[in-house]
């Protein structure tokens, strides 16, 4: 201790004192001052601190639900359903809710980029919560980008230019179609993994065979009393899940009718099967047989002449082949025959087999027996969207294989890819990635740094769906013909540009027939032209005196729809006189297990990069952030496999390793696995998470050209590794694991 207290010490002490008081008064206003930037020019209809709502269309899948996005001072805050929209009536699914995590995703393509194929588009890090992920810097100007597109259009012969697009029949598809028609380039091909798993080609082909029209059928679940669903996962991702879920709700609990019943035929209980009153685990591949047998038994109950389609099937034989007890078949047939509102739906894995077309036909024939065509609770043709003349089906897997073959043969010199991620979504055995090597120039319009974008020469990023203009035809799910409208709800966050704008500008640069094909100032002018063509149509949801007002209403209401039921009844004339080949499906591969891939109900094909979708538990298994293999407890016991054990699934085309989820509701001879994870790019939340069942798919198709994704047998090999799955459920509380023996 000393009496001397140096000046320096004093200052130190003073500093410490001030710092301490500052900490102690940390609640003082100074600690909270933030800078605020007011608008430079306040947009009209905007108030400080108040939300503005914009109607638009959801782009998370091809269904086309109407959304209203709540925005506040230029930021999109919340997705709400558009209550006026005939398809979803104000409701949304989880993916629609999480679309904001796409908009503000930390990994987006931030501007036009030229890069070497295969290069990373963002820095890799192990911790997805870390901020230090750098997206690749844009290294081109948009002028250069437009010139690149224009060059690509002019440098190659029209037939050497291809467009591969997403599944939604939207304005961009119309624009490219117009361009193709005018210039002779290849017509755009639309594809999406959801369409592949829904077997849309099979549905329309069956409709064509039975009813003479290749249309998308609509199943009025809500109006029915007994619904037999052959694998259709209509409460998850199938065709138009929000609309079908609404149907299901009124099947069960409508004010005006009795509670309807749902019977689900599938080897692995899906989320839809979980809601069914009866779940029938039939042997995969025997769906057609079972449908025919039920038809035969139901016809017998109803009496009268046995329809030709059911005449050749032997229910006893079917019972033994399918593993469904004869009594069960009889009981279901009785339920079906005695109901006034019987409906049968084909879908899901049932169609993705070698005999998928027969399944679809047999099931549609059941509806003919129920005589429900064009009746409430029955089968309709979905209304064609306004200005649509025919059902525009997305490409089947077979058609995609032909497309890839053309690529391999060097028939495409320039390929434009928009709204689809074929490197991830197509079966690995098709080798889309390899085929890209034979295409001279690949231009991607990807919003996100996905696997296909990484393989492109140029990425000219399109806006996120919530930043863009557009319209989309609603293919199915609504009784009204709907053209759903999209508008930007926020200003583009990055230096992105609408693909339609890029094409229009590039076409101007390219000149000649290109410039003539797209004589528009910009995307909006093109849109306005298309939309205002509807002005003259009668019975619309709104009308207007001029094109500007019409377009404004189109934006305001989130689309335009006719107010009259656009559904039509399929002709039932020949449906019962067909000859459906009811043989069981053939399975490729050596293994002993049937393999059922299904689309993850929460992630679907493109949700993996949205963190909150990753954190949503799967409806059946409650697993988050990963892929799993579902296996019957008995099988697991026999193979000495426990939950979370990593196994190797080997198909004829490939192999993947993933942890086992011991799943009580799956046949012992079947294993199942969700599709949606297993990305090798696509941003920090998606990459390196889970595995992709597409790696296992071989090149087998059903008669309609859809992929026989469920037509495989696989081998299971133990690896000795363990990988705990993140589950919301408790292993103890739900399965009694670790509670002691007696439980």
């Amino acid at each position, binding site marked *: *201790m000393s*009496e001397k207290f140096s000046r320096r010490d*004093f200052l130190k*002490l*003073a500093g410490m*004192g*001030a*710092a*301490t*008081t*500052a900490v102690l*008064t940390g*609640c*003082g*206003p*100074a*600690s*909270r*001052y*933030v*800078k*605020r*930037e*007011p*608008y*430079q*020019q*306040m947009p009209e209809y905007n*108030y*400080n*601190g*108040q939300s503005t709502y914009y109607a638009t269309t959801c782009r998370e899948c091809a269904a086309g639900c109407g959304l209203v996005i709540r925005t506040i001072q230029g930021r999109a805050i919340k997705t709400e359903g558009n209550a006026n929209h005939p398809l979803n009536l104000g409701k949304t699914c989880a993916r629609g809710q999480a679309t904001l995590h796409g908009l503000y995703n930390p990994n987006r393509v931030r501007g036009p980029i030229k890069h070497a194929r295969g290069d990373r588009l963002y820095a890799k890090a192990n911790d997805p919560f870390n901020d230090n992920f750098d997206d690749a810097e844009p290294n081109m100007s948009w002028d250069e980008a437009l010139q690149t597109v224009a060059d690509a259009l002019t440098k190659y012969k029209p037939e050497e230019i291809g467009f591969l697009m997403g599944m939604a029949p939207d304005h961009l598809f119309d624009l490219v179609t117009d361009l193709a028609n005018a210039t002779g380039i290849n017509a755009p091909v639309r594809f999406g993994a959801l369409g592949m798993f829904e077997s849309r080609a099979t549905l329309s082909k069956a409709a064509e065979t039975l009813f003479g029209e290749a249309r998308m059928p609509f199943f009025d679940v809500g109006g029915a009393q007994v619904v037999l669903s052959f694998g259709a996962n209509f409460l998850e991702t199938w065709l138009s899940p929000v609309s079908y879920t609404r149907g299901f709700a009124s099947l069960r609990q409508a004010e005006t009718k009795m509670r309807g019943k749902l019977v689900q035929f599938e080897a692995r209980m899906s989320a839809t099967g979980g809601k069914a009153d009866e779940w029938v685990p039939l042997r995969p591949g025997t769906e057609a047989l079972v449908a025919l047998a039920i038809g035969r038994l139901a016809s017998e109950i109803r009496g009268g002449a046995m329809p030709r389609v059911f005449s050749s099937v032997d229910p006893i034989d079917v019972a033994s082949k399918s593993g469904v007890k004869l009594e069960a078949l009889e009981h279901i047939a009785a339920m079906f025959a005695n109901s006034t509102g019987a409906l049968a739906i084909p879908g899901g894995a049932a169609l993705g087999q070698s005999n998928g077309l027969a399944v679809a036909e047999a099931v549609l024939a059941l509806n003919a027996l129920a005589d429900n065509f064009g009746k409430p609770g029955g089968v309709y043709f979905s209304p064609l969207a306004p200005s649509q003349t025919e059902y525009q089906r997305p490409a089947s897997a077979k058609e995609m294989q032909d497309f890839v073959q053309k690529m391999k043969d060097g028939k495409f010199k320039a390929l434009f890819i928009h709204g689809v991620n074929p490197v991830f979504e197509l079966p690995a055995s098709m080798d889309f990635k390899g085929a890209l090597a034979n295409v001279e120039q690949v231009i991607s319009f990807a919003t996100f740094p996905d696997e296909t974008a990484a393989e492109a020469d140029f990425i000219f990023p399109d806006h996120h769906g919530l930043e863009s203009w557009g319209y989309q035809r609603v293919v199915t799910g609504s009784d009204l013909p709907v053209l759903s409208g999209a508008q930007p709800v926020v200003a583009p966050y990055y230096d992105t540009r609408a693909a339609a704008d890029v094409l229009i500008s590039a076409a101007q640069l390219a000149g000649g027939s290109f410039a003539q094909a797209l004589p528009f100032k910009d995307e909006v002018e093109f849109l306005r032209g298309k939309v205002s063509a509807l002005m003259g149509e009668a019975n619309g949801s709104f009308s207007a005196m001029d094109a500007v007002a019409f377009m404004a209403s189109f934006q305001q209401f989130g689309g335009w729809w006719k107010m009259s039921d656009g559904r039509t009844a399929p002709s039932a004339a020949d449906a019962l006189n067909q000859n459906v080949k009811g043989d069981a499906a053939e399975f490729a591969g050596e293994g002993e297990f049937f393999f059922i891939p299904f689309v993850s109900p929460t992630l679907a094909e493109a949700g993996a990069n949205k963190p909150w979708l990753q954190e949503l538990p799967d409806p059946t298994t409650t697993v988050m952030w990963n892929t799993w293999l579902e296996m019957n407890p008995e099988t697991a016991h026999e193979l000495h496999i426990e939950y979370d054990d990593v196994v190797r699934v080997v198909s004829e085309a490939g192999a993947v390793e993933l942890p086992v989820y011991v799943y009580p509701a799956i046949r012992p001879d079947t294993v199942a696995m969700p599709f949606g994870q297993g990305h090798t790019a696509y941003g920090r939340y998606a990459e390196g998470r889970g595995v992709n069942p597409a790696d296992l798919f071989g090149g087998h198709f059903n008669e309609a050209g859809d992929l026989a994704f469920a037509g495989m047998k696989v081998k299971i090999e133990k690896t000795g590794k363990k990988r705990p799955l993140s589950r919301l459920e408790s292993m103890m509380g739900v399965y009694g694991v670790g509670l002691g023996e007696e439980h």
Partner: protein
Amino acid sequence: MIKRFFDWLKQPLGLIAVGIVFLALFSIAAYGLYTTQQSPEQPIQFPHKTHVAFGIQCLYCHPGASKGPSAGLPSQAKCWACHNQIQKTQTSALLAPLKDAVLSGQSIEWVPVAIVPDFVQFNHRAHIAAGKNCEDCHGDVSQMNIAENPQVMNMGWCLNCHVESAGEDQEKLVKLTDCGTCHY
């Protein structure tokens, strides 16, 4: 030595020294407190006083106050609408940042002084509707140059007024003192 020191402290000189040390510590603490209570630097030395003196109403520039939660800062377009026509705008050094901002299209980064923490959900509209005047909380702005906050806007201050304005009305008191009225 320690003993000698303590003995010295008991001497008049020592007592004075102790007093000085205490005074110094107190001043440091007071200074520390003072620094946390200062109005922040503003991009423009905006004189509220002058504007109010011209008869401009609060709600002219902060119209949100009567309509919703946030009073809002005026967009620079609004400033410019008047200042555009004022000769002084071209010459005044004070106004140069405004001119620059408008011409360059940059935002002016204001620092609001009347702030509540982010866990408080404050709604201007309800307060205006309840008959509160701006100056009740923000002080006599007509006498202020650069914005300053005359109040310590803490919970006790809020509650005090809430309880007073509820008066005898039990239902109103319940509503106005409910935690969930401001915190959610």
